[in-house]
């Protein structure tokens, strides 16, 4: 006998009084107990004729509807034998499924998205889903277990990584460097006398960074020329005293950086990064500086360049250059750059198309300062001229803002004098 349901919202009942005891014989419909619920009190009738063999609950006990309350031995009935048939076939089927990999390459949208964002090879991931399917959780735990080995961070990530080696270079060289990174679709034969150069880690990093920048960033390029006669005169006046007093050479580079940084503060969009679904304008102005070594190119960073004087910048440039030469660069020296300055003029170049230092938005090359005849006030004059070349990420920047930025740099450089540009 089970606790009956005594009303639509009634889910339990309390046996208030047993009307029979063990050993009693009852007829069908005889009252056997009084039950109280919070809606009704009722006598419950027996559903069978037979002998009461056991009372399973005591008076005052509350139990859910459907729970047994007593047992009745019904005349002529066989004692019920509990059937315990467990379906073991189910387990076996599951075992077999483990071997089945028919779903291994059937990817869900979530799995494909994660694989794309983290540049994963799904063949390397074990699937724990049905028939070997790779689940979203499988990919997530794969990423979590070995983030460095397997992933290249997505450009849409908020924290944007800095390449560990060179991020900028002139295009012709970059093409050469990129070749090894391209999947070997053909083999290159080397003939007698050729010198085969094994790739160093730095060279591989340069190659992959250049390739990535060129693949992902739609580059645009422009150039302006700047009359830096005032700067040349100013620097000539003070360079001797500076060397004597500070022990460092005073080059043109700190003056250029100073002007660029000032313009970057006015045009934060240049000092930004493309982040997939948004553009992030960086608050910090950290200048990556391309520094060449014999076999490689590094881009160490002058942190918070906007807080430094000409002297501070000069010292920072010297220190980074020395670190590169003496192989003392720490990973930290390479981190956090927001804009790159490339001093191609030091090779005598007068024009270049730099590749953007991924994931920054722009890179600027300072070419050689050369004396040229130019027209000033309708007269031909001999002036110190320099070309500034800029490559921009055209997703982030358009010609207009780039042009205004360059015009501002030009204005600052052409008007340099001891009053507005103190050394200290």
């Amino acid at each position, binding site marked *: 006998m089970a606790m009956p349901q005594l009303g*639509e919202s009634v*889910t339990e009942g309390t046996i208030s009084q047993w009307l029979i005891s063990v050993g009693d014989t009852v007829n069908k419909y005889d009252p056997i107990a009084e039950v109280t619920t919070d809606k009704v009190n009722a006598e419950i009738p027996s559903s069978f004729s037979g002998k009461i063999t056991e009372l399973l609950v005591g008076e005052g006990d509350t139990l859910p509807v459907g729970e047994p309350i007593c047992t009745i031995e019904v005349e002529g009935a066989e004692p019920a034998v509990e059937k315990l048939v467990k379906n073991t076939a189910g387990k076996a089927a599951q075992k077999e499924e483990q071997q089945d990999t028919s779903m291994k390459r059937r990817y*869900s949208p979530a799995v494909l*998205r994660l694989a794309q964002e983290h540049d994963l090879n799904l063949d390397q991931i074990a699937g724990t889903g049905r028939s070997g399917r790779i689940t*979203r959780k499988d990919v997530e735990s794969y990423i979590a277990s070995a983030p460095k080995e397997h992933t290249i961070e997505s450009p849409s990530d908020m924290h944007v990584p800095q390449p560990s080696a060179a991020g900028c270079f002139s295009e012709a060289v970059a093409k050469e460097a990129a070749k090894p990174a391209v999947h070997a679709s053909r083999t290159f034969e080397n003939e007698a006398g050729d010198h085969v150069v094994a790739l160093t880690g730095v060279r591989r990093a340069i190659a992959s960074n250049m390739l990535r920048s060129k693949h992902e960033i739609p580059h645009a390029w422009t150039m302006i020329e700047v009359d830096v006669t005032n700067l040349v005169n100013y620097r000539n006046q003070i360079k001797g005293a500076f060397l004597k007093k500070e022990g460092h050479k005073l080059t043109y580079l700190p003056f250029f950086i100073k002007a660029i940084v000032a313009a970057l503060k006015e045009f934060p969009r240049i000092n930004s990064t493309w982040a997939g679904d948004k553009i992030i304008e960086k608050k910090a102005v950290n200048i990556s500086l391309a520094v060449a070594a014999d076999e490689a190119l590094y881009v160490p960073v002058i942190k918070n360049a906007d807080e430094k004087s000409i002297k501070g910048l000069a010292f920072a440039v010297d220190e980074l250059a020395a670190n590169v030469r003496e192989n003392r660069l720490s990973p930290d020296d390479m981190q956090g750059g927001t804009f790159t300055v490339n001093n191609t003029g030091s090779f005598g170049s007068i024009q270049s198309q730099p590749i953007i230092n991924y994931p920054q938005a722009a890179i600027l090359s300072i070419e050689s300062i050369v004396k040229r005849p130019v027209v000033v006030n309708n007269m031909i004059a001999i002036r110190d001229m320099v070309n500034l070349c800029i490559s921009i990420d055209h997703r982030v920047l358009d010609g207009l803002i780039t042009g205004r930025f360059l015009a501002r740099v030009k204005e600052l450089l052409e008007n340099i004098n001891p009053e507005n540009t103190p050394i200290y």
Partner: protein
Amino acid sequence: MPVLSYIEAVTQALDEEMSRDENVFVLGEDVGKRGGVFQATKGLYDKYGENRVIDTPLAESAIAGVGIGAAMYGMRPVAEMQFSDFMLPAANQIISEAAKTRYRSNNDWSVPMTIRAPFGGGVHGGLYHSQSMEAIFANVPGLKIVIPSTPYDVKGLLKASIRDNDPVIFFEHKRAYRLIKGEVPVDDYTIPLGKADVKRDGTDVTVITYGLMVHYAMQAADKLAAEGISTHILDLRTVYPLDKEAIVDAARKTGKVLLLTEDTKEGSVISEAAAIIAENCLFDLDAPIRRLAAPDAPAMPYAGPLEQAFMVKPEQVENEIRDLAEF
């Protein structure tokens, strides 16, 4: 904190709102002297008198219509439909008048009325005492539909519904009335309408549901936790309009979604949830969106075994979650 049953939380919320605001009154069949067929209004007649606890004739259209008129004149009626199955005669009043009055009068008039209606199956109630009616009203802008799952939510949501300045249909699950008990603070609190609630945090499978099915999902989740399957459970609480943001968040959480209702499947509230997920979460989904619901049959059968077959059962919920987890 006192432990109350689901229905005691209803009574407490009504009592508190009636003593707090004299514009609140109750009307419905047998709600007065009898205290309601389920005893939801027990004691209110003695405490507040026949003018504030009004026994009505057996005419649901009149119960709704009187409520609408009173509400437009500044009262806050709480109308009881004895069973949600009998709401249909009132549907014209609710859909054509209550839902549209603010819009039609350009904000001059509003209907701050709450309609309470017991719903749901598994109570051996047969065709006319077992239905889920929410989908019929869940396509009527201007209405809000609340379906609480716990005594705590009952009190907070019913008080918020009564204080809401527009019509709210408040469905209470008959089977939950005395089955579900839980802690309910004695103090005066409300729960915002339109906000779903994460009832359990998990990482493998998301279950989005409401009403009694929340408890089936919780039971299943407890069992599955022993097998290492972690279930995330979102209780919609307000089924119209839906909390889209919470649904999208919950779906993204695991990428495997089971939508659960005891209503018949086609055109149910969870079908709308499925559409929201499909519109927003394609690239987060790791499995097809699943729905578990009653069969598309005209009504809950009276015969015990057939009622069992019709009702969604905790074991089914468990099996569906496990199946999704293994997918």
